[in-house]
Structure formats: structure tokens, C-alpha cells
């Protein structure tokens, strides 16, 4: 471990310590987590989960706290618009809730959607369980930072049996200000029994926004509830975005997830799912496309802990220029999770000789009658396909773009929201270096 107390990053976080919330348990939890970070520091690459993502340089940086000016940075509302996404919307600019950009009128019965800062002023006890978590792993540094420093975030609850037809949109904007900011968001989402929701989480950034953003998101999907979650990460090219989502799926719960990682500088996504109820089903599709000098690290950890649970995950990575991609997919089928079905695939393309992708699927099975499959590859575009397209007249760059686009777009095929799917497809195409 590095010498944490001397890390400029730590010092800058300390200076940014939050004023007392007036809620004793919350202040205690913040203090504890700050202390834990002070002691544990940032993980180095000897910690398995951070093997390919070095944090030395980040630890040496100082980030300013979000002040009123930073919170008031202007954002063109047109940039938030997403086709096929017209429901309620909660927007944060540099981690601060923006009432102006949000759309909270018309809230259907049975739904709570509000900024965490507001929720804490109400029934804070309901948030105590989520916000008092201890992070024990050596790799948890950013969760600790987040717990110590997050002043806002999303609280979203859907009551039992309530089905929300129009997709709800959560937007996190990193807007450029005079200084390099650190901001943090803490989301608590719960779908009660039999509830249904489609959720879109969007990360955007202004050019020149050099930031550190951490995001921790707990999602509880109760028995028989269904959640569709699309994550569009298009943060500013200077943004270091460290995000963790923890999902818990109860009996018969279903979660379908589509993730598109496009923006950011250093991007880390820990996606943890626990299938704790019988017959829970998780379906994830994801694409990460680092280019330039971007570094994108996705860590998928799925635990099957109940009977007949299903997880099906396919992720694809495309790295160009001098970019680096990391994918780790770890599936555990715990004792007693008999009859479970787990599959995980990760295919990657390298579009340049200096790009790199490290991928590692891990599968541990401790139960009986389990169906499991996993595989990972890193390669170049199929030479035969390229030649076929070129032999018909398509120029090399176009042929490569077409094949690469097809490779990625396949991950969106089963995204149910068609206008959104088309839009994401287009974004994906635009991101391709040769497009």
C-alpha cells in the first residue's frame, strides 16, 4: 500500500470534507469511511481487482471541491435528450442536483424519485442501511471515498406491483469549470415486489472537464420485479469516472442491462450482482470502446446464491489508438444454488497495434446440476470478412468500420427500447475511429 495520508488526492478530499449533515449515524459513517481510506489508501496493482489499472498518477492529483459556481455550470438541456426516453428525469451537474434540468412533475403514484439530499431531510432512517455500509476489501478505496464525500445522488423507489411505462432518466453531467473537480454521487434504487421499471443512466461531460467522479449505486430488485437498465457512459475525455453498482435480485426478479462505455479518461465500472432469490434472472450486454489514451476497466462479479438462477452476460471491447481495455468477469455459483445456469462471454477487437485489452473470465462452481459456459478472446477483425467486403469495392477503412460496428451493435440487439437502441447504435458508430 502507498502512504495514504500523504497522497495529494487524500489531502484534497480531506479539505473537501462535508459539513455535518445533522444526522448522527450518517456523519459517523462518513467519518469512518474517510478514516478507512486514510488507512487503506488506493489499491496498487498487486490487488487482483486492480491488476491492470494503476492508480499512482491519480493518487498524486488534487481535485477541488464543488462550490456554488461549479454547481451552477450551464448545461444545454438539448444535450440531455435521448430518443425513446421521455419519462421523469433527475439531473446532477458536477454531483449537484439541478432542479432546472430535471423533470419531476407528473410523478406516477407509487414512485418516489428525488435527490438524496432531499430524501435525507425527510425519512433518513429508510436510507440508513444503504448508507452505513462498510467497505472492507482492499480494492474498495473509491467506495470509501464515495461514502465519505457524496453529498447527493438518486433515491428511486417503485412500490409493489407498480409498472412504470415511460423510461426514467438519470443524468450525471460533468461540466467544465475553472478548476479540476471531484464529485460523488450515491444512488439508492429499489423496486418492490412485482414492480417494473425501465431506467436509463447517462453520463455526459463538457469538453475540458478534468474531474474525478465516483458513483455508487445500490439496486434492490424484490421478488418478481423487473428492471431494464441502460447505461450510457459518455463522460468528458478528461473525466476519471469510478462507478460501482451492486444489484440484488430476489426470487423471480429479472434484470436486463445494456452498458455502453464510450467516454472518460480512466473509467472503472464494478458491476456486482447477487442472485439471492430462486429463479432470479440477470441478462447483461455491454460494449466498451476505449480510444486515444483512454483506459476502461469493467469488473463484472455475479454470484448465484439461490436455486435455478440464471445469468447471461456478453460483453465486447474495441480498443484503438493507444487505448487500454480491461475486462474481468467472475461468476460464482455458491453452494446450494443448484440448477443454476451461468454464461459469460467476452470478445474483444484490437484496432491498432498499440491498443491493448486484458480479459479474464473466472468461473467458480460449488453447486450441483449447474450449466455454465464462459469464454474470452482478443483478436483482430476477421481477415476473410474484410477481404469479402473489399472485393466488392468497399474501401478498407469503411469495411473495417462496418465490421467493427456490427461487432459492437450486436450487444444492443435485444435492447427493447427501439428509438434508444437506434440512437445508441449511432453513438457507437460515431465513436469508431475510422467512421
Amino acid at each position: 500500500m502507498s502512504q495514504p495520508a500523504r497522497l495529494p488526492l487524500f489531502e484534497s478530499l480531506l479539505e473537501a470534507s462535508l459539513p455535518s449533515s445533522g444526522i448522527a449515524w450518517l456523519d459517523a459513517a462518513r467519518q469512518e469511511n474517510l478514516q478507512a481510506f486514510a488507512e487503506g489508501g488506493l489499491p496498487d496493482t498487486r490487488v487482483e481487482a486492480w491488476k491492470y489499472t494503476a492508480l499512482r498518477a491519480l493518487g498524486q492529483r488534487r481535485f477541488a471541491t464543488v462550490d456554488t459556481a461549479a454547481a451552477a455550470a450551464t448545461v444545454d438541456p438539448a444535450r440531455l435528450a435521448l430518443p425513446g426516453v421521455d419519462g421523469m428525469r433527475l439531473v446532477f451537474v458536477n454531483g449537484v442536483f439541478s432542479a432546472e434540468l430535471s423533470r419531476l412533475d407528473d410523478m406516477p403514484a407509487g414512485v418516489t424519485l428525488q435527490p438524496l439530499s432531499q430524501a435525507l431531510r425527510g425519512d433518513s432512517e429508510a436510507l440508513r442501511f444503504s448508507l452505513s455500509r462498510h467497505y472492507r476489501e482492499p480494492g474498495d478505496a473509491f467506495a470509501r471515498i464515495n461514502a465519505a464525500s457524496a453529498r447527493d445522488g438518486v433515491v428511486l423507489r417503485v412500490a409493489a406491483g407498480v409498472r412504470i411505462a415511460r423510461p426514467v432518466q438519470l443524468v450525471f453531467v460533468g461540466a467544465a469549470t475553472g478548476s479540476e473537480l471531484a464529485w460523488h454521487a450515491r444512488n439508492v434504487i429499489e423496486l418492490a415486489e412485482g414492480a417494473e421499471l425501465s431506467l436509463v443512466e447517462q453520463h455526459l461531460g463538457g469538453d475540458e472537464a478534468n474531474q474525478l467522479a465516483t458513483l455508487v449505486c445500490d439496486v434492490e430488485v424484490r421478488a418478481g420485479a423487473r428492471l431494464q437498465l441502460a447505461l450510457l457512459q459518455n463522460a468528458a475525455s478528461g473525466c476519471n469516472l469510478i462507478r460501482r453498482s451492486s444489484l440484488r435480485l430476489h426470487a423471480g426478479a429479472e434484470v436486463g442491462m445494456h452498458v455502453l462505455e464510450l467516454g472518460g479518461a480512466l473509467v472503472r465500472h464494478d458491476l456486482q450482482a447477487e442472485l439471492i432469490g430462486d429463479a432470479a434472472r440477470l441478462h447483461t450486454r455491454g460494449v466498451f470502446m476505449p480510444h486515444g489514451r483512454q483506459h476502461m476497466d469493467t469488473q463484472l462479479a455475479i454470484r448465484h446464491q439461490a436455486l435455478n438462477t440464471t445469468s447471461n452476460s456478453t460483453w465486447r471491447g474495441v480498443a484503438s489508438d493507444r487505448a487500454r481495455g480491461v475486462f474481468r468477469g467472475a461468476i460464482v455459483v455458491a453452494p446450494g444454488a443448484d440448477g443454476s445456469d451461468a454464461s459469460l462471454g467476452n470478445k474483444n477487437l484490437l484496432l491498432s497495434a498499440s491498443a491493448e485489452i486484458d480479459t479474464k473470465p473466472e468461473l467458480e462452481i460449488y453447486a450441483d446440476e449447474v450449466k455454465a459456459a464462459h469464454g474470452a478472446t482478443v483478436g483482430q477483425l476477421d481477415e476473410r470478412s474484410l477481404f469479402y467486403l473489399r472485393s466488392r469495392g468497399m474501401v478498407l477503412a469503411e469495411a473495417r468500420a462496418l465490421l467493427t460496428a456490427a461487432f459492437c451493435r450486436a450487444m444492443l440487439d435485444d435492447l427493447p427500447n427501439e428509438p434508444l437502441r437506434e440512437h445508441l447504435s449511432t453513438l457507437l458508430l460515431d465513436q469508431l475511429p475510422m467512421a
Partner: protein
Amino acid sequence: MTMLKIENLHARVEGREILKGLSLTVNAGEVHAIMGPNGAGKSTLGNVLSGRDGYEVTEGTVSYNGVDLLTLAPEARAAAGVFLAFQYPVEIPGVNNTYFLRAALNAQRKVRGEKELDSMQFLKLVREKLKVMQISDELLHRAVNEGFSGGEKKRNEIFQMAVLEPQLAILDETDSGLDIDALKQVAQGVNTLRSPHRAFLMITHYQRLLDYVVPDFVHVLADGRIVESGDKSLALKLEEHGYADIGAGAAA
């Protein structure tokens, strides 16, 4: 007029010499059939002519309409009118057949300084070509060759040829694996395109195709060279006696 002149062509694949001094001249308007034993180098010739990577020409020249074909990228050859119907057409998931064909045609037209076709104009062209080469609408809307049967893939190759209207078409065993109706359709596709300005190299193992598309010349390619050339009767002779005598003749 000479369209294609191959002289003393030597080519290696994976370090192994496959073409060993092949010479062949094709004039505009002609149909040449190329027959020969498995592994003789027929597909290699098609690949070398269309510019596939990994096929290294070590000796010899190929001139096409007076230009050195071997210096051109595959897409430049396509734009110049060279077309290869693949022995094994490639499946490309996620790339729509119609989209691909229009993009390819427009890429060629752009190089030739012709106006690109918009989707309406392209649709009209497709309808016209479908009269020649029957393939179902459903196939057109699928991904390129994905899940196509063997015969459907071959028909798709000819359909692409009909749309792209090449000057020099190399058909690599397009007749293999076709039922009799499909074979007739493929033959009709070729015959429709036959013109004084076009030439065809038809690689085939069977005399049957040549009943429908009557070739001007038949060549035998064995061990990387053209070892015998003749008219249509050569194909009949081969059908009867195989390649045994031919090989002996070439060695002499």
C-alpha cells in the same frame, strides 16, 4: 481486345509456392473455363487476381486493361471492374445484405466518378436484377450470407455480380452444390451479362455448367500452371478420362 494478360505468374501462400508459372490471356467478350484437380491452385488464382492478403506474388505479371493489376488494392480492383464470386462466400453477421451491396456499389461508383445511387434508385436496380437472379426478399434483408444455405450463398454471389456489373468476373465453383434449377439460373445470370465488353473466368469441376454457359476456351490448371487449353470439347474429354493423361502430357 486483350483484357487480362497473365504471364509466368508465381505465387506463394504461407511460404509454399502454389502458382508456378501460370500464363493466360483473356480478351473482352470471352468466356474461359478453368478446370483442374483439387488443390491445383484455381482458387489461389482467383484470390491473387482479386488482391487477397497473404498471397505473395514472387514472379510474373498481370496486366488488366493495360494496368498492372497486382499493385492495386482489392477495392481498387473491384472499382476497375474485377469481381470474384467466392467458392466459399463469407457470412458477415450484423451487416445487412442490401446495405452492404449499396455501399459497395456506391464506393465503386465514387472511384469511377459516377453519381452515387440513393436508396430509391438502388431499390429500382435491385428489382430489375431480381428478374435475372431470383433470390427471396427475405434473404436480401438478412445479414450478408448469414444462415444462407450453400445454394443461396452461391445465388447471392451471382446476384451481387448482376448488380455490380463487373468487366471481369471470376466465378469460383459457383456451380458446385447447386440444384438443377439454381444452376440454370446462375447460367442465365452469366449469359445475361455476357457482352463484348465483359469477360468471364469460370472455375468449375463439372462439364454440366458448360452446357448452359458455352465457353470459348477451356483450360486445365494443374500444379500451378495451365497445362492444356482447348475448346469446349476438352471439357467433354476431361469428363470422360479425368486428369490422368493431361498431367502426363504436361510433364513431358
